[in-house]
Each structure stands twice: as C-alpha cells, then as structure tokens.
C-alpha cells in the first residue's frame, strides 16, 4: 500500500465523516461548515487524482462562492440557532433505513463491476491547459449553451427576488395578499 492509497483511505474516511456531520448537525451553520469541510476533502481527492483544475474550481466555486452564499442566507434568516423543529423520529428512522437499503442494494449490485484501476497521481488531463484546450475546441457549444442557463437563472433571480411593486395593484395581487394573510393565520405564523 503506497502513500497515495493511505491518503485515499484517510480522505475517504474524512469525507464520509464530514458528510455525515452535515446531516447530523442540529445547527444549520454547523451543517454548512461541515459541508465546506466535505468539499475540501473532495478537492483533496481531486488533487490525488491529479485533477488540479477541478480541485481549484471546487474550492473557489463551491466552498468559496456557493457555500458562502448559503451561509449568508442562513445568517440573513437568523437560522443559526437550533430552531429546526424535530421531525417525527419514526419518519427519520424510516428515511435513514430506506437510504441505507438503497446503499446496500446498489453496493451489492455494483460489487460485480470489473476491478479496473483509476490512475492516481499521474496523468495530465486534469491540468488547466489540457482541459482548457478540450473545452474550447470540443466543448464550445455546450459552453455557450450554459450561458442560456445563466441568463435564465439571472432572470429568475430577478423575477423571484425583486420585491413586488406595490404600485401595480391588480385583482390577482389583492387576491393573493388576502390568501397570504389567510395562510399565515392558518399556519399560526
């Protein structure tokens, strides 16, 4: 067993542990932190697999941008306390068992996969320059297409996030407001 193997096992254990902690942690903030830890371990896996570009992007985009956004929202909502009401214990158990079954079944099924090797440490396809070349030669169309995705997400964020203009009051809006009031009442909020 070489150093890489040992590193793999350690990282695997770390990522599983931190992932579990995401699920288990009572406080949303802790969950976020543990998720960031998980991302870091996964980035480490990337490094181990010599996929440096992805390792970097993962940290920058995921751990850096996305998770901070999450954290930001949680803070904004003041959800850092253990405000989450507990779900029915049985339902939780059933959920966990069901998930466990899925894992067992899939692992049992995929156990028969051919034992093939993944190249660790070496191989240079994961380097920025090589990936970039492929991206802009072969994958330029999907790259452009993803811009549509971003455009729509952008529009979406505007549509959803923009506060409803109170000047434009139409029947449907009044109706909606009334319904919101009713809903709040009914939910006891």
């Amino acid at each position, binding site marked *: 067993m070489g150093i890489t193997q040992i590193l793999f096992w350690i990282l695997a254990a770390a990522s599983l542990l931190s992932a579990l902690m995401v699920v288990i942690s009572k406080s949303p903030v802790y969950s976020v932190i543990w998720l960031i830890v998980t991302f870091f371990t996964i980035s480490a896996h990337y490094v181990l697999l010599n996929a440096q570009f992805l390792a970097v992007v993962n940290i920058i985009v995921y751990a850096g941008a996305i998770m901070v956004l999450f954290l930001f929202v949680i803070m904004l909502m003041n959800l850092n306390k253990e405000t989450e009401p507990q779900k029915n214990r049985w*339902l939780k158990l059933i959920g966990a068992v*069901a998930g466990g*079954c899925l894992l067992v*079944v899939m692992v049992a*099924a995929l156990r028969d996969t051919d034992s093939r090797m993944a190249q660790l440490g070496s191989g240079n396809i994961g380097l920025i320059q090589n990936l970039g070349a492929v991206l802009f030669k072969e994958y330029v169309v999907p790259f452009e297409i993803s811009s549509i995705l971003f455009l729509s997400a952008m529009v979406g964020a505007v549509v959803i996030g923009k506060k409803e203009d109170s000047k434009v009051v139409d029947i449907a809006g009044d109706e909606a407001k009334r319904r919101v009031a009713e809903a709040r009442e009914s939910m006891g909020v």
Partner: protein
Amino acid sequence: MKNLIALIPLLPLIGFLINGLGRKHLPKGVVGIIGSGTVLGSFIISLVIFLQGNFSATPIKYFDFINVGSLQIPFAFQVDQLSTLFLLIITGVGFLIHVYSTSYMHGEKREHFGRYFAYLNLFVFSMLLLVMGANYVIMFIGWEGVGLCSYLLIGYWFKNIDYTKAAKKAFVMNRIGDLGFLLAVFWIIAKIGSVQYEDVFTAASLDKLTPSDITGITLLLFLGATGKSAQIPLYTWLPDAMAGPTPVSALIHAATMVTAGIYMIARSNALFVNAQVTNTVIAIIGAATALLAATIALRQNDIKKVLAYSTVSQLGYMFLALGCGAYTAAVFHVMTHAFFKALLFLGSGSVIHAMSGQQDIRFMGGLKSKLKITYLTFFIGCLAIAGIPPFSGFFSKDAILLSAFEHDKFLYAIGLLTAALTAFYMFRLLFITFNGGFRGTEEQRHHVHESPAAMTLPLIVLAILSIVGGFVGVPEVFLHGGERLGEFLSPVIPTAHHTISHSTELMLMALTTVIAIVAIVIAWMRYRNYKEEQNGALGKLLQNKWYVDELYDSVVVKPINKLGVIANHYFERSGIDYLVNGVGRLVNYGGRQLRWMQSGQVGSYVLLMVISMVAFFFLQFFLRK
C-alpha cells in the same frame, strides 16, 4: 279448384277485414250479413268439394313461405277427407253460430258489434288454416291464430279486468302447449328436414325415425294438444274462458278450436301409431281428464261452467279414443260433440239471454214452459251427450268405449263411470234450470221470453244434427257395411279392425245405455225440485274444482313471480348491477384512498421515491434472472 280452395279461408279473412276496418261505419245488419255470409260461402265451397269428392292428398302450393337452403316450407293447403270433414264442421257450425250471434249480440254498440264479428271471422279463418294446412307450420299458424282469436274473444268485454285476465290465462296456457308443438316441429325438421305431412308420414313409415324420436315427437305434439284441447295438466283455462260471449264459447270452446288437438293427432296418426308409450300416456291423460272434469261438473252452478267442464270431459273421451288408436272414433266424437255441445251452449245462451244475463242455475228453474224451443233442443242435446240411443252421442261415445274396452279394461271402466257422471250432471243441469219453480227475481220473471228466430233456428238445426249426426258412423253391428265414416276417412286414417265379437259389442252398448238411464233417473229424483244443496266435504272439494287452480297458483305462478322478484331485486339490482356499479365505486374509493400518498410533504414524496427505487433495484438485480 286451387283458387276455389283458397277462397275457403279467404272469405272469412275478407269478412274480417271489412268488418274490422268498417266497424264504425257499417250498420249492424250489414256486419251480420258479411260475417255470416262469408262463412256460409266457405261452407258452400266445402260442401261442393265434399260432394264432388274432389279430395287432394297432395298439397296445393300457393307460394314459398320460408325457403332457406334445404328447408322448404311452402304455403300450401291439403284438402283431403279429414280436412273436409273438419271444414264442414267448422264452417257449418260456425255459420249457425254467426247467425245466432247476430241476434245474441244485438245489444252491443255498433263498433263493438263489428269488432265481434271481425274476431269471429278471423277465428274461422285461423281454424280453416289449421285444418287445411299441408304442413305443420301452416297448421301452427292456424294453431296460434285460433289461440289469438280465443284471447281476443274471451277478453271481448275488456272493461272487465277479470275477463281479460281469463283471456290472458287462456293464451298463456295455450302457449305452453304451443311450445311443445314447436319443439316437435323442430325435432321433425332436424330428423326429416321437412314439415310436409307427406314427407313426415312417409319417413315415419320408412323407419327414418328411431323409436325414441317418435316417442319424443309425439309426446311433444301431445303436449301441444293438451294446451289447445284443455287436457290435464293444462285444462284450467277452458272453464275460465267462459268469460267470453256465449256464442264464442259454443264455437271456439266447444265445437272447433278445442278439437284442434284431436285433429292434429288424428292427422299425425302415422306417427302416433308407432308410439306406444305416447299412446298410453294419451289414453291415461284422456281418461283422467274425462273423469276429473266430470266430477267437477257435478257441483258447478254456473250454467256455462257446467258445460265447460263437460267439454273438457268429452275432450278427454276423445283423447282416450286417440290413445286407444281409435282415430276414427275420436273424429266421430268431435263431430257429434260439435253438434250437441254447440247446441247446449247456444241453448244456455238462450237461457242467459232470457234471464237478462243471469248464469247461475240456482236462480233459474221452471223455464220449461216459457222457453219451449230452448227447452226442447236443450233436452235433445242432453240426451245426445248422455249417450242415449239413437242420438248422435250414443254412437260416437260407444265407438270410443268399445275401443277402450278392447284396449284396456280399466280405462273402459273409467270411461263408463264418466258416462254415468255425464248423464247425471247434464240432467242435473237440465232439471235445475228448466224444472221446478222459478227462483229468479220478479223483474226477470217478467222479462223471460223465448229468443228470436235468429237464435232459435240455429238451435233447431243443431238439434236435428244432434239427432241424426250419429248415423254417419253407425257401427257395423247395426248396419252391414256400416262405419261409413271410417271408410270415408280411410285414405287418411287406416281403418282399424275390431276384434270383439258382435255380441259383446251389443252387451256393452246395453250396459252403457242402462247406466246412463239410471243416472238420469237419479238426477230426476234429486233435482226435479231443486233446493239449496248442502255441500259435504267432497261436495266442497268438487265445487272448488279440486283446488287445482290454487295448486297451480302456489306451485307455478307464485314461484315464478317470486323468482322474478328475486331475480329483479336481488340478482339484478343487488347482484349484477351492484357489481357493475361496484367497479365504479371501487375506482372512486381507490381514488380517495390513493390520496394518502399525496400527503403534500416533500419528505414523504422523496421517501416513496427512494423506496420505489430500492424496490426496482432489488427487482432488477436480485429477482429477475
């Protein structure tokens, strides 16, 4: 000739159409003339055929009625000796009764009068079809046709719901028999492939039919006959049928229609000759019916009911004869019976007419002096039916008893007993009605009068026929080379040869006559001066007709109704329909129950998805191999 023969049934049909369509517009006189005249025309044509001896054993085909593949059923007539005899009886007696009716029904409204004659004509048409048809299908057309007319005429006074019920009963019971007839016809078609008499009878003699075929076919045909001719077990409709106008009872329910069964069996003698089982059954049922009806007639007080049961009893006689193989005797009795029973019915009609509709003999009495002609003719009728020589009934009844004696002594004994009872109840009727003091209301007493000529003339003619009618069949023992009727019919019905010596024959005749006279004397003693009778247990039983109607009601009618109620209510509504609707309800219920899955909770949705994924994976990787 062909066209002339076609005219026989067509004339009454034309009469039917004219009277039926013009019933509102034609005056009663015209209706009567058309009604009677058409039948008279038919009678004359029949007479011409009879006198010319122009009989045709082969069918006269008019057109194809049904012609499908190998099965050919032509619309054809066959006017042979047997048919001609019946033609004469039907048209002759029919004409007389038409004439009688013109007077009897005179009180009816114009349109109903027309309707009545239309029905009568239609009946004659159907009856003629029945006897003239050259195959079983044409016979069946007439067979059902007379049933229809019987239905219409019994229910003629349709305002009275009981009358229409009686009509319905008559029709339905006839239909039970008709089903037997039809099944027999199907059987014949299946085995022989034809319904033409000549084909069927030839095939019967050529042994194309197995004994079981013949037994089955003849039994089914006999079932048909029991319906039409009011034999056990289907006789109960006939007494109820007296709801119709009296001339109708005379024509249909005494003289003609009810003898259709005898005609049919006599016509099919070639089949019946070889069916021993059936013949035994026929003889037994005939004898039983004769006795049963006679016992019931002993204690009936409705003048027409007595005559009705008497008819049933006499028909039983005829079947006894048929069962004993004495077809000629049966036909002979049909003829004489037609004369004297029509006479008796018309006579009773005259009495009822005189008594303003009163039918209960307990409220009559002493009419002898006021209704002379009626009394006299009625008396002749009674003598004829009682079998007093030399009236017509004597000869025909004697022929039957003779063949019964030949055939089976026990049946003969029953026949003899019935003869005694017949004489007794007929004279009971006569004495109660015509002798003693008048027991009706004062109003009736003033009203009582002899009927008009249109009614008495037929009575007189029939009385004469009742007297002399028997001479066509005087047995050989009295007249050498006798049995002219048998000879006449021999092309159709092979002549039977008696095995009994002349001396025994004479002894039997004497015995019959003596018994009848004794019965009459007893009746004279008991009913000369009628007083209210005390009914014993047996008397009550008889008065209530052995409770057969009640028995049928509880054994057949009620169970079928009950079955219908159960089928309708439980099986149909709560069973099949419930199941069908149940599918709908199940869908609805399922729709409601399935909603639990749609709990609105994202968690449970995902959970269900994950569980199904596990299940699918499990199925994919571990179950299906």
